[in-house]
């Protein structure tokens, strides 16, 4: 994964990503697209919590609890935990 440290090193070497060709912000073009994509993409360790078979709604868990005979573990947050929190 492209960490901030690696990105800073790449910048020092290539000097392109943070060069303000456009004074309104960082450079996003065909040459930098892949770099930004990988910087923004979550790493596998950051996403390991998604390997748990979460049901997206409480009602699904209630239904499956009745079927499987297991207790429910509900993670309830302001903002859906599987989306924006």
């Amino acid at each position, binding site marked *: 994964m492209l960490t901030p440290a690696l990105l800073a090193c790449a910048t020092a070497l290539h000097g392109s990503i943070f060069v303000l060709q456009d004074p309104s912000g*960082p450079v*996003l073009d065909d040459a930098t697209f892949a770099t930004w994509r990988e910087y923004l993409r979550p790493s596998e360790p950051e996403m390991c919590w998604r390997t748990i078979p979460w049901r997206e709604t409480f009602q699904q*868990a209630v239904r499956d609890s009745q079927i499987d*005979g297991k*207790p*429910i573990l509900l993670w309830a947050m*302001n903002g859906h935990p599987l989306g924006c929190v």
Partner: protein
Amino acid sequence: MIELLEQFIPAADEVGWLQRGEDAECRLFQQVAEQGHYAGRVKPTNTRQGIYATTASGIMLASINTRSAEQVIDMLERALARWSELSEEERRLDDDTLRAVTSTRRWEHLYPEDGLVLRVDSRDLPREIDPRPENDWRRNARNRDLLWFTRDEALALVPADDTPGSSRDWPAHLANRVVCLNLVDNVCGQVPAFESDHAQQASIRSVVDSVDGNVVRVRIEGRTRAVVAGRWSVDGFNDMNDPSQQERGIETRILGFAEFDRLTQKFTAFEMVAIGTRWGATQYNGRTDDAEPAGIGYLFLLAEPHERAAPAFMWRYGWRK
């Protein structure tokens, strides 16, 4: 932890609706929550956020609100011990209530099976000077949301003419959906969406790059800007009764590449990046001490089939449950 979790039905859900709603599913959650760690709480807020272990019948087994894995493990073990004390009859919900709970209409039921579903990951861009402490969790924060399009809306993102160079501006209401609902500063916490009249620029277009059989490759380009000024709190509970004059905004440039299959009428590939500047803070978005202009980025990718949680601001789509 994983071995313990396998003994449960794991679920995640949005607590705000569950704790305020009046239908059967919400009432069942409220029954559970009022046996838990925040039972009866009204100050500083009435939140019922947390992790709850419960029977389907609404008997709370254990609950906690923590980021500590050790405390969660302890909670799970206590829950299983309590579960073992209950009879099967005590654990189960009666048929009528079960029917009522599982028939509640949810935004998730509107998942566009034949449309376009994107997940949107947000993150701060690297910067030379970060005003936050070195070990501050916000330095590595990320957030994620979903973005839905119906089949017809997805079709409207693709030029009608396959000739390379042909272009199509995204319909205004769809570009606004992206600008107002997804290009928001949620990296470190929840943030209100922008209203439509906050969008000063919402220009996104698709351009045909090439065609290969049934597959049209498009390039996506855009510029966005949304700004709002007003009075609101920016420091959690500390200034919740003392709002002050504020301004917040986001401006981005967009670049993306996608592939659309004319035969199946679906996108088979989609990668879009939005890079730009954010400024300002809101009550819960963790920018109290970091409101000066700084870089922010978003990555839009095709969601996995199992990623079916509704977008954060689903009620702004105008879709009916």
